[in-house]
């Protein structure tokens, strides 16, 4: 890749991941981003069903997979992610494991 076209991407931190998750989740659930807090429970507070969560996972994998090769969400871990904060922490940890986290 020519040097002038190579842009070094900054690692994503928890705040970046939260912003991304909140934005995409708001699109999927068609709700205001302001309703999505770190403490929000996917099911109890946001009324997100399994299909909505899988949509979120696929979108996040596609977006983060482009900048961090090897980033993926393990389906077996999904059942343990109840709140937005847990999801953010999980994604940050997976990014770090894949070499793209902050």
């Amino acid at each position, binding site marked *: 890749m020519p040097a002038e076209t190579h842009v070094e991407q900054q690692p994503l931190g928890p705040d970046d991941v939260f912003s991304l998750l909140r934005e995409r989740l708001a699109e999927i659930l*068609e709700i205001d981003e302001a309703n999505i807090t770190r403490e929000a429970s996917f099911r109890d507070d946001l009324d997100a*069903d*399994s*299909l*909505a969560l*899988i*949509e979120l*996972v*696929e979108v996040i994998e596609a977006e983060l997979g482009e900048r961090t090769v090897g980033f993926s969400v393990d*389906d077996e871990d999904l059942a343990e992610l109840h709140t937005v904060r847990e999801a953010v922490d999980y994604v940050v940890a997976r990014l770090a494991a894949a070499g793209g986290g902050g």
Partner: protein
Amino acid sequence: MTKGRHNGDTGHRRTVAVDAMGGDRAPGEIVAGALQAARELDVQVLLVGRRDEIAPLLPSGEMPEGVELVEASEVISMDDEPLAAVRQMKDSSIMRAFEAVRDGRAHAMVSAGNTGAVTTGAVLRLGRFKGVPSPAIAVPIPVPGHHPQLLVDGGAVVDPAPERLVQYALMGREYAQARWDIATPRIGLLSNGEEAGKGDELRKAAFPLLQSVPGFLGNVEGRDFMHHDVVDVIVTDGFTGNVALKSLEGALRAVSSVVFGVFEQSPEGREASKLVMAPLLAAANDFSPDVVGGAVLLGIKGITVISHGSSSARAITNAVQIAADCARRGMVERIRKAVADAG
């Protein structure tokens, strides 16, 4: 073929991606039905699946004119858990068929495979319309001598909000208008009595909302299925919709067993069967799910036809015809607009 061309395309021939690996009788009956569709209908077919299993089923081992292979190495079985299967088997015939639609290679897809996986795949690969949390399954109900009735929802969402039933009515209305040329489809809410106050909390809440939908005539009952004189589109939640469907199937099976059993019980019966068996079989044909055709997912940004799990070649040919017909009639755009206009 360029991406996105199909949505506004008013050209003649339509391309349908057929999941060759889905269904109890796949790939044999599926491939046979798809090839028949390519021969007899004005369609092109993409056969999606494993080359080594499809190739032996082709005449002379080669793709006939109007048929193309799209390779997919994995198969989602009828018993697989839908969400996990769709996530893990990205090279499955179901997902590759959806990608053919998404990428503009096909106008529509047909599958006789795992209904949950097809529904989930449709959401992930084609997407939902804004305002539609998840698709509904529109199932044609045979009505002898007339166009079918449409049941929405046949089992996709077991506990929808009352507002969803209004969406079902609007989408079902568009479908009935577009496919069967009914100017103002009569829409009924399936309940346990015709009176407005009848039903559970869902029905009581949905009834006043549905009154804004043109053609809504109020509650209908289970006995109104399969009759042309009352209702064209029957709206209900996926739980009762699926129970109603299976009840109809069971009742029809029982009735046909009784009727045909009579002919075996006595010499007179066997003699009578020589006279009436042919017209009886012809009449029974009207009730065959292979003839009535597949269910359609409503609320998705693409045409998806779900044929029943034990589909024969004829069922697949009919499903391809439905898929192509939906594409020709601009079903996706019509339903998108109906949902958007309703806010």
